[in-house]
């Protein structure tokens, strides 16, 4: 019978916490970049112009269809060769996940925008708003409310996907856990602890998202 011993994990808890902080930071950066990228891609996709919508479509489909780990390797090992720049694990990860989550966010934005009744845009145009004003003031605020659950889900997926950066030696939670497991010869405890840290963090984010959703559902403006 195996005797569990978490004391080496607890003694090195600060390493894991530092890893978690890096995981959250990377998720935050990718979100901050991915949401505007996604909105831009969605607007390009929906614009009448083929010169905008075709390239946006390619970016969206390629980044949604290929494995994120291949994307990360491409950005980390491949891109520096073309651009002749120094690539750090952090930069490669931030780039990959910004564009990748942007591609997913684009489809969420697009579906949200399309779901807003055509009459809303027409009413906005009929009182003299420009296309951009109608989008910003009337369509997007309604679309964003509907998209919120899908956005939260995607953000949580993104946080889980950030574990891939451990493979290019960025010190996220998983990477720290792997290091610690080798150092302490206690892989069971270390990986279990790391899994629990992910579980708690992600469950917490899910719970907060569910709470906000309920709040939005009861606020008067959403009643139909």
């Amino acid at each position, binding site marked *: 019978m195996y005797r569990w011993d978490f004391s080496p994990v607890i003694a090195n808890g600060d390493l894991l916490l530092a890893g978690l902080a890096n995981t959250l930071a990377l998720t935050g950066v990718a979100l901050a970049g991915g949401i505007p990228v996604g909105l831009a891609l969605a607007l390009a996709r929906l614009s009448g112009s083929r010169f905008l919508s075709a390239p946006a479509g390619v970016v969206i489909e390629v980044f949604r269809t290929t*494995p994120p*780990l*291949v994307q990360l390797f491409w950005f980390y*090992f491949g891109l520096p060769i073309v651009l002749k720049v120094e690539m750090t694990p952090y930069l490669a990860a931030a780039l990959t996940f910004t564009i990748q989550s942007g591609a997913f966010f684009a489809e969420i934005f697009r579906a949200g925008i399309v779901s807003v009744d055509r009459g809303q845009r027409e009413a906005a145009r009929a009182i003299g708003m420009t296309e951009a004003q109608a989008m910003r003031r009337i369509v997007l605020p309604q679309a964003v409310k509907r998209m919120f659950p899908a956005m939260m889900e995607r953000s949580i997926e993104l946080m889980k996907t950030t574990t891939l950066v451990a493979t290019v030696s960025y010190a996220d939670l*998983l990477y720290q856990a*792997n290091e610690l497991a080798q150092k302490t010869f206690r*892989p069971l405890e270390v*990986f*279990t602890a790391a899994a629990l840290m992910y579980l708690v963090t992600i469950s917490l984010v899910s719970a907060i998202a569910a709470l906000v959703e309920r709040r939005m559902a009861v606020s008067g403006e959403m009643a139909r």
Partner: protein
Amino acid sequence: MSYRWDFAPVLDNWQALAFGAIGTVRLFLVCLVLGLSLGLVVALMRRSRHGVLRWLAIGFIELFRNTPVLVQILWFYFALPMLVPVEISPFGAAILGISLNSAAYSAEIYRAGIQSIEPGQWEAARAIGMTGLQVLRRIVLPQALRRVLPALTNRGIEIFKMTTLASVVAYVELLQQGKLVASLNFNPLEVYTVIGALFFLLLYPLVRATYALERRLARSD
């Protein structure tokens, strides 16, 4: 000065890549079958009247959905052998991680599908004397499965993409072989471009098929 792409060394190593591709497809098929069928079992447990079964299912779903699949694979590879006296191969760890993760996700898909069937269907089948199991098998599941087919296809695509994670425990699949080729020829740009393109070419038809399924379903419902 612009970079001169050279795909020749990649093509010269096509056998290594093909070998990897076989590993990818093998892992994909095993995880697809295990993940989607186990998911149905978990979904049915989730609806069970027995509290223990129901809570087991809920715990399983939450645990596997709320932790990263890469952590799961590494846990099965490095941590599990400490608990049970068996050797776990990279293939085994990848199968466990990806299949169980996919089971948790597909359980939620099945559940949504079953829930979307109107109560009238249950009542009508009950009214002609069917047992609960018969109603499920003959009436509810056929309709529910049809509705969730696009979501399941999507899940299948995700599983295919997830197989690359097995490279982290050095299972021989496409990306793992790519790493090898790239390190031998110092040409990561070309190798990873080719591998990305291969995945895209393999998966994009499936993506299109999912769109088509979604459209057809939207029309018929």
